[in-house]
């Protein structure tokens, strides 16, 4: 069973620019839609809360793993840990890695998230049932997405 996600995106911006967008906690927060309490530091917990409409009640928490300038940024987290009553710390987190590579037109960014096979199945169901209007909204996005890319 495949248990990782991999994305590649060609960005028309210098590696240094992309590195800053990924690792400056304020810049990261802008595009990821999370408000972080402070800078990313390897080995330390990064905390904040989601600013994505409909998910503002959710906390963000990740542990920064590696910061190899302009090359690799990685953290572990519990993706879509939506139940505020539950303690997720005993579960195995997934690992998110951003790899950067210089190209003639800018930067090739490779994002991988791995370790999904360790997530308990009830967690997967919960994430999919994200309550309130956010879920319906998400469905519409997905619907739009799948109809655009058959």
């Amino acid at each position, binding site marked *: 069973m495949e248990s990782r*996600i991999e*994305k590649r995106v060609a*960005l028309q*911006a210098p590696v240094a620019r992309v590195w800053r*967008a990924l690792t400056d906690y304020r810049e990261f927060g802008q595009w990821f839609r999370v408000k972080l309490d402070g800078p990313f530091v390897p080995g330390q917990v990064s905390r904040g809360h989601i600013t994505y409409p409909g998910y503002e009640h959710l906390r963000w928490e990740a542990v920064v793993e590696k910061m190899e300038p302009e090359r690799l940024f990685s953290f572990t987290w519990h993706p879509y840990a939506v139940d505020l009553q539950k303690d997720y710390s005993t579960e195995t987190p997934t690992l998110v890695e951003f790899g950067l590579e210089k190209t003639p037109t800018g930067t090739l960014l490779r994002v991988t998230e791995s370790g*999904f096979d360790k997530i308990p199945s009830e967690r997967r169901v919960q994430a999919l049932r994200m309550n309130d209007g956010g879920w*319906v909204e*998400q469905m519409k996005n*997905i619907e739009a997405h*799948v109809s655009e890319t058959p």
Partner: protein
Amino acid sequence: MSPKRHSNIVATRGRSPVFAALGDETRLSLVAKLCAVQNGSISQLTEGSNLTRQAITKHLRVMERVGIVRCVRKGRESRFQFNPEPIEGIREYLDFVSQQWDQALSRLKSFVEDERPRS
């Protein structure tokens, strides 16, 4: 100025028929009803909506085709059940997380590219 392109995000995405089937408010509300009333009849499921029994049946068949609704014959009547299994599959979960990444990376792309000096 070249048009903004998000299409060069190459993803390991597969078409997700389950999400497509659920991407409709009528069908989502039917799922909610089916969760409340196990073995719902067409009459029960049509109640409270502005749609005809035929229209509701059509929506149920769409969901039946992707496996999230089961139809059980009870005499002359059809009864419908919600079947969460396809939604619970890891594949669907990965698709969901995958979509989140697609959206986040599109935002990142705009974020780092839009501030370039325009020609």
